């Protein structure tokens, strides 16, 4: 379905010296440096799969998505999707894909949402019959009815994102690219969006590539992930495997009734844990203990803490994706 082979994307950047003098100088004499935003990546996605594409900000996720959607031309390498090369047969190719960039909208700002859909219907040449069934389906999945007659500029972010997702699906695409589709949304809307994505994937066997910073997105939606850093693929494989290797870290967040109680806790001496296996960060009243759940069980750690101190508030969380990503770099994982 999707083949990406040794793809590289380079950008030319002007090097500017700081200050006004530097700016004036660069007006006459420019120095360029080449930045590799994406560096020799390869992967495949079979039909019907939801692939999670993760990495820190600036890792090259969006650049990759933009190459796959035909917006950018790769400097080197080969991209083939649905048997087509995105930037070559662009007009034909984009009929079969849907794209959502969470950071910007593709809806018409001043128009009622319904009008946006009818313009898109014309652009994608969807016939009336299909359009009606499609709208009914999208309405049901994304609950657009409440605001379909409102101008886009009056929509809340959550409504807008649902509308954007609907807009990307109006022509029944075979492949869907979602670049941070849950960014800035509250939990309820996130759930709603995830449910919709799952439903669309199951009912229509849509292949989906998704980038996100939210581990919950990945967890509910993807079986497989590709992780990218500094333009290179760091990990490509099952999510469960990655979690086994790196996701066994948990966080205990707590605050104490008496701050001096903290002195009672000697994790290193009492539990014989330290280094990567257990880390403590103190930020005023808030104490965060990050630990490897194979090295010490949650209950052991909690009972140790509770025995030693008077806890005002305590919670146990999964570490977020950034944390896992950071750890993976720390461990020097090479491309698999």
């Amino acid at each position, binding site marked *: 379905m999707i083949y990406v082979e040794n793809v590289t994307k380079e*950008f030319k950047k002007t090097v500017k010296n700081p200050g006004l003098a530097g700016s004036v100088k660069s007006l006459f004499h420019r120095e360029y440096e080449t930045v590799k935003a994406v560096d020799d990546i390869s992967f495949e996605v079979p039909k019907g799969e939801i692939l999670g594409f993760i990495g820190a900000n600036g890792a090259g996720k969006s650049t990759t998505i933009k190459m796959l959607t035909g917006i950018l*031309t790769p400097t080197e390498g080969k991209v083939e999707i649905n048997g087509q090369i995105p930037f070559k047969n662009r*007009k034909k190719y*984009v009929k079969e894909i849907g794209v959502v960039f969470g950071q*910007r909208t593709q809806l018409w700002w*001043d128009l009622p949402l319904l009008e946006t859909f009818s*313009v898109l219907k*014309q652009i*994608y040449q969807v016939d009336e019959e299909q359009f009606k069934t499609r709208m009914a389906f999208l309405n049901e999945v994304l609950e657009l009815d409440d605001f379909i007659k409102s101008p886009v500029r009056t929509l809340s972010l959550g409504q807008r994102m649902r509308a954007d997702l609907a807009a990307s699906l109006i022509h029944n695409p075979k492949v869907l690219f979602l670049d941070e589709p849950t960014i800035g949304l509250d939990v309820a809307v996130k759930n709603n969006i995830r449910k919709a994505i799952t439903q669309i994937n199951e009912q229509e066997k849509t292949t989906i590539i998704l980038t996100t910073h939210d581990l919950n997105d990945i967890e509910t939606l993807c079986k497989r992930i590709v992780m990218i850093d500094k333009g290179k693929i760091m990990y490509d494989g099952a999510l469960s495997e990655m979690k086994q290797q790196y996701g066994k870290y948990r966080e205990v967040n707590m605050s104490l009734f008496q701050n001096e109680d903290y002195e009672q806790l000697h994790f290193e001496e009492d539990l014989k844990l330290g280094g990567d296996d257990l880390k403590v960060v103190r930020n005023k009243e808030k104490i965060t203990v990050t630990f490897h759940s194979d090295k010490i069980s949650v209950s052991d750690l909690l009972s140790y803490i509770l025995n030693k101190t008077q806890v005002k508030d305590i919670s146990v969380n999964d570490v977020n994706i950034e944390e896992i990503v950071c750890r993976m770099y720390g461990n020097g994982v090479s491309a698999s």
Partner: protein
Amino acid sequence: MRFLRLYGTFIALHLKKLMEYRIDFLTGAVSFLINQITNIVFIGIIFSQIPDLDGYLFYEIIFIYGFSLVPKGIDHLLTDNLWKVAWFIVRKGDFDKYLTRPISPLAHVIMEFVQFDALGELLTGIVLVVVASVKLSISYTAGKIVLMIIAMLFGTLIFTSIKIACSAIAFKIKQSGSILQIFYMTSDFARYPVTIYNEIVKNIITYIIPFAFTAYYPASYILRGNDPVFCIGGTVVLSLILFGFSLIVWQKGISAYESAGS
């Protein structure tokens, strides 16, 4: 055909939007009208000091001026979004959207916005041409009118082509609004007979940035019966060459497009 229907849809939507932002529209249209009136007053002041301009009478100048407003106004009405491409659509990465749609990005970006403010310009132009024609008692034939309309349409294409080419430079250098501004402003030279300019300016606005063909040359055919092959044919040929050129620049531009970080 499909494009026309889509364009129709967009125009209808814009009319709806117009109703929503009435005050803005009225302000825009009135400001264009005031702008035009000051320009005419300015020409009036010039002529209160001199009897004729290089052999051209006041109403002949008014005719040329009015003529120049028609292609400029049509272009302004239909392709105003290109200014946004030059100033910020490319720089901010908002061009992504057009590249993910199954129609020509150029057609899409142009159709998406209709600048109704330009109606003030267009209307002034038509009124001035009519008034000047009456005052000069120009005798029109059907053929003359057809040629005049042809010249106005292809004159529009000259404006549009220059806007396409200049805004496409933004793909390479991120922002080309000022470049577009400079080229667009040279169209002001077309308001007067090219014979009043020196050879360099004359050749530039005739052959390089051929704004003289958007007004003076076709008008001189109507006013003075100058060679229609050059005056009207020139407009058609040069506009087509320029249009072809601008499409190549645009296409090259798109492949250099770098989007923006998100």
